[in-house]
């Protein structure tokens, strides 16, 4: 059997069918299925690379009295040991947007504030020796009491993590939009709800990896790492390391083994390993192990939300108050405290209400610092909002679907500016909802549930809606800028991306990106876009991804996060194609002696519109431009390389009323789940799961489906399985995959997926984001479904994860 996967796309576009929108099998797969990927651990970019092992704090909170590493350094093969004292003069704290952030360095100095905090780094000739040496470092600690619970950490009696700040509250902002107080005074009904969202980690299968090289002759840092962007973190790193921006070069390999947000916050380790290189005088490599990853890299935020919702008797929601408290761990690790600000523009979700109060607090606790986790704080947001909408429905005795239908935005309201500043360009939310209800046969489902209940089964139906924000605005954090430094001096905005395309002397097309993907298929989609523009096969196009800030075009916003590729880079690629086509048409018009207006690009040729016989292949044109440029007019420059930048114009700086369009693009999603609580095991069985979306134009439906399934599993892990558990001393109890239990194929579920494609009006390709949306709807839909199942017992469960043991206790209690 001879198999050439490259010639067997799932769909082959015909003349009038485009590659964009087709289910093209991925180009990346060619190397990945052969074990020929190019991941961080596989790299050997320099000679004499040494290896690092990190000694980490065993205490949740303690003072470091003394570190003695004399025995460690004596082991043959150990080159050096880096401790907090070494870095005092070499680094500045990471710059943070918060009022009382404390000082955050790449490793502990004087004090440790979470289990897993780096205390010393051994640099040795190999990993085994470096780890041997860790055992011989003697650290004397004075243990301090810890605080791990959000609401306790805020109290006066709580131990202080950063004494100099006098509080564990890193930042708090209270802002009102519309007439919230009036809405609540005039409401017929006010419902209140407290919901708790668990701390869990995205745990990509590939851990962090860094090679740091301190170039002492140039006072420069060259860093290889599996960073996912945003490259605004480049500025954070340059500042901390004390290097000017062009002396910090970040390189990301073409293959990264998953990210989901956690690899945004690799940079403290990128700095740490570079400091280790500075001390040791050799390049240093560090590959995080799984235990380090679970205790010391980054996690999503655990959150307590107090919700209040005001409504009229007919179910019209008139106002919402959010009191949000996030446990951001021991330090504020940028882009934190973005967790409280990231969904600023979509705090009202898909609903019409105009009165919103945001009371947002980030609290320091003796836990690992947090960072973005797929859906960056939108899982938390919609879990709280959709639980409260259900409570309102329950209180008013209105069907939850009818209540939502009453309150969601109408198509005629678009483009819609939300009370908090979000800009939703276009959409038909009721149509998406209807699509879902039709697929699910909602009425029939209600009947079925009734029948099953009669048989004594605990069956529930849950629905959730979400507006998914993609392509974050580089300026959204300015809503949190401390009041004493006005952000007016240096406002930020934009969500941009770059792409470079080169056509070589043989007509070969190379696309170079700085998008640092982690499995999202950027190479494939880039090739689809280019193939359509030039009329060639996507398999003939070479796409280079990863990153190199030293040699490629990139922007502050570059990277693969915030579901941004389809709405940003994809458009930059399109524009770069257009730039090259303009040039090639100019050359062709000169050679063919006609106007560029009369020329088209079809099937890899520049063709005369009126006379198809008159044509020149792109290959031939490229050959002439490279080999024989002197025959071309002076105004045509040499070479065939074009770099384009695309920026979403709708993402402006924070306005004078404190409102911001925090994201460039907003998708819409509805999920519906039918679940059953097993009466013997108290496990939750998901009997049916439906999704309907409007993500705009789907560039590759196969990749879109993969993203929805991946996001669903992330949400499932969040809702039912995963939690980072700490005891009262800040000791982490889930430090291995034996205790931190991830869903496997046995727990996976099937989805019924519907799409409505309303192309975005803000991007030439019409696409929005997809990769995170399911993480925003799944926790809410499942929690609502479980509570619907529990309804006959008059009990409520609002804290995640919903485990069999919690269901067991709550049902046993109810039966009494």
């Amino acid at each position, binding site marked *: 059997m*001879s198999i050439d996967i490259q010639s067997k796309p799932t769909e082959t576009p015909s003349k009038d069918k485009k590659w964009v929108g087709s289910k093209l099998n991925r180009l990346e797969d060619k190397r990945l*299925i052969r*074990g020929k990927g190019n991941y961080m651990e596989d790299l050997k970019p320099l000679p004499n690379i040494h290896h690092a092992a990190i000694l980490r704090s065993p205490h949740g909170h303690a003072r470091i009295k003394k570190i003695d590493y004399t025995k460690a350094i004596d082991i043959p093969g150990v080159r050096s040991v880096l401790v907090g004292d070494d870095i005092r003069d070499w680094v500045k704290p990471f710059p943070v947007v918060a009022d009382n952030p404390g000082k955050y360095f790449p490793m502990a100095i004087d004090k440790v504030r979470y289990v897993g905090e780096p205390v010393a780094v051994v640099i040795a000739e190999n990993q085994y020796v470096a780890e041997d040496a860790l055992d011989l470092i003697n650290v004397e600690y004075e243990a301090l009491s810890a605080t791990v619970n959000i609401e306790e950490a805020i109290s006066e009696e709580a131990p202080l993590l950063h004494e100099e700040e006098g509080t564990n509250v890193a930042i708090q902002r209270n802002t009102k939009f519309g007439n919230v107080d009036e809405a609540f005074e005039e409401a017929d009904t006010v419902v209140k709800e407290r919901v708790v969202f668990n701390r869990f980690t995205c745990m990509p299968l590939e851990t962090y990896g860094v090679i740091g090289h301190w170039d002492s002759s140039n006072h420069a840092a060259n860093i290889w790492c599996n960073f996912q962007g945003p490259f605004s973190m480049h500025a954070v790193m340059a500042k901390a390391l004390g290097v000017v921006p062009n002396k910090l070069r970040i390189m990301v390999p073409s293959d990264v083994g998953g990210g989901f947000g956690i690899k945004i916050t690799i940079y403290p380790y990128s700095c740490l390993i570079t400091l280790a290189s500075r001390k040791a005088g050799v390049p240093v490599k560090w590959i995080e192990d799984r235990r380090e990853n679970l205790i010391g890299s980054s996690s999503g935020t655990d959150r307590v939300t107090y919700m209040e919702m005001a409504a009229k008797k007919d179910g019209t929601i008139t106002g919402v108050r959010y009191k949000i408290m996030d446990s951001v761990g021991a330090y504020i690790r940028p882009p934190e405290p973005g967790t409280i600000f990231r969904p600023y523009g979509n705090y009202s979700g898909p609903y019409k209400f105009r009165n919103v109060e945001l009371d947002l607090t980030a609290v320091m606790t003796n836990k690992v610092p947090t960072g973005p986790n797929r859906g960056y704080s939108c899982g938390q947001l919609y879990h709280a909002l959709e639980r409260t909408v259900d409570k309102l429905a329950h209180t008013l005795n209105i069907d939850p679907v009818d209540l939502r239908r009453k309150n969601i935005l109408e198509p005629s309201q678009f483009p819609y500016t939300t009370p908090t500043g979000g800009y939703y360009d276009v959409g038909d939310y009721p149509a998406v909802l209807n699509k879902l209800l039709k697929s699910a046969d909602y009425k029939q489902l209600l009947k079925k549930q009734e029948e099953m209940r009669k048989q004594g089964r605990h069956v529930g139906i849950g629905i959730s809606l979400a507006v998914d924000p993609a392509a974050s605005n580089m300026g959204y954090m300015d809503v949190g800028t401390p009041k004493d430094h006005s952000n007016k001096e240096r406002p930020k905005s934009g969500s941009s991306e770059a792409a470079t395309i080169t056509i070589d002397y043989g007509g070969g097309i190379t696309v170079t990106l700085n998008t640092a993907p982690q499995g999202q298929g950027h190479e494939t989609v880039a090739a689809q876009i280019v193939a359509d523009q030039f009329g060639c096969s996507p398999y003939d196009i070479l796409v280079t991804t990863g990153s190199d800030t030293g040699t490629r075009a990139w922007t502050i916003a570059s990277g693969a996060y915030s579901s941004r590729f389809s709405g940003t880079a994809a458009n930059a690629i399109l524009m770069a194609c257009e730039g090259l086509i303009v040039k090639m048409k100019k050359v062709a018009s000169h050679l063919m002696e006609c106007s560029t207006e009369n020329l088209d690009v079809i099937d890899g040729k520049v063709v005369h519109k009126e006379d198809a016989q008159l044509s020149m292949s792109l290959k031939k044109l490229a050959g002439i431009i490279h080999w024989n440029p002197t025959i071309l007019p002076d105004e045509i420059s040499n070479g065939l390389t074009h770099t384009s930048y695309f920026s979403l114009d709708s993402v402006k700086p924070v306005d004078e009323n404190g409102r911001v369009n925090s994201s460039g693009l907003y998708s819409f999603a509805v999920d519906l789940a039918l679940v059953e609580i097993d009466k013997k095991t108290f496990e939750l069985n998901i009997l049916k799961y439906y999704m309907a979306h409007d993500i705009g134009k789907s560039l590759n439906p196969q990749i879109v489906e993969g993203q929805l399934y991946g996001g669903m599993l992330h949400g499932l892990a969040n809702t039912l399985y995963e939690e980072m558990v700490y005891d009262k001393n800040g000791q982490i109890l889930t430090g291995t995959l034996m205790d931190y239990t991830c869903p*496997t194929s046995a727990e996976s579920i099937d989805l019924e997926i519907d799409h409505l494609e309303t192309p975005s009006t803000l991007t030439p390709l019409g696409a929005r984001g997809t990769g995170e949306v399911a993480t925003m709807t799944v926790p809410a839909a499942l929690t609502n479904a479980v509570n619907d199942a529990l309804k006959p017992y008059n009990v409520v469960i609002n804290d995640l994860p919903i485990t069999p043991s919690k269901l067991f206790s709550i049902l046993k209690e109810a039966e009494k």
Partner: protein
Amino acid sequence: MQENTHTMNITVNGVNYEKEVPVRKLLSDFLREDLGLTGTHVGCEHGVCGACTLFVNGEAIRSCLMFAIQADGADVTTIEGLERNGELHPMQESFSECHGLQCGFCTPGMMMAAIDFLKHNPNPTEQEVKEGMSGNICRCTGYKGIVDSVLKAAPLISKLETKSKVF
């Protein structure tokens, strides 16, 4: 501290090697570092995720839980050995066609585990695949593409001559 070493003989993907190896070196590290076979990935180093799965003497094992010298004299097949004479293994083809991978980090171990699973159950149902493959973790795909890939590969593998089935 002097590293204890041992000289071992091993056949990997049909090639015979004689190497001096520290006795405590893991098989996964040995393959990656000493033989340059970086297709075997290490996701947890404690035997849970399955990313490091490969075949030793026809048995699927977790190479992070085995010392290299335990494979002295063994015949090993890694992901790099699946393609034979320029022909992909049906499992590789199916993974690509069914979008069974995204980041690709779990993929080598996942495909090895899948081949092993089909060896014991050549004609599985979807539910059997879901249960049989539950020893390997994937964080990207939600498992949908993986389950589809294994189901698609099953009849193709059954048709292969035993020799080229890898195990």
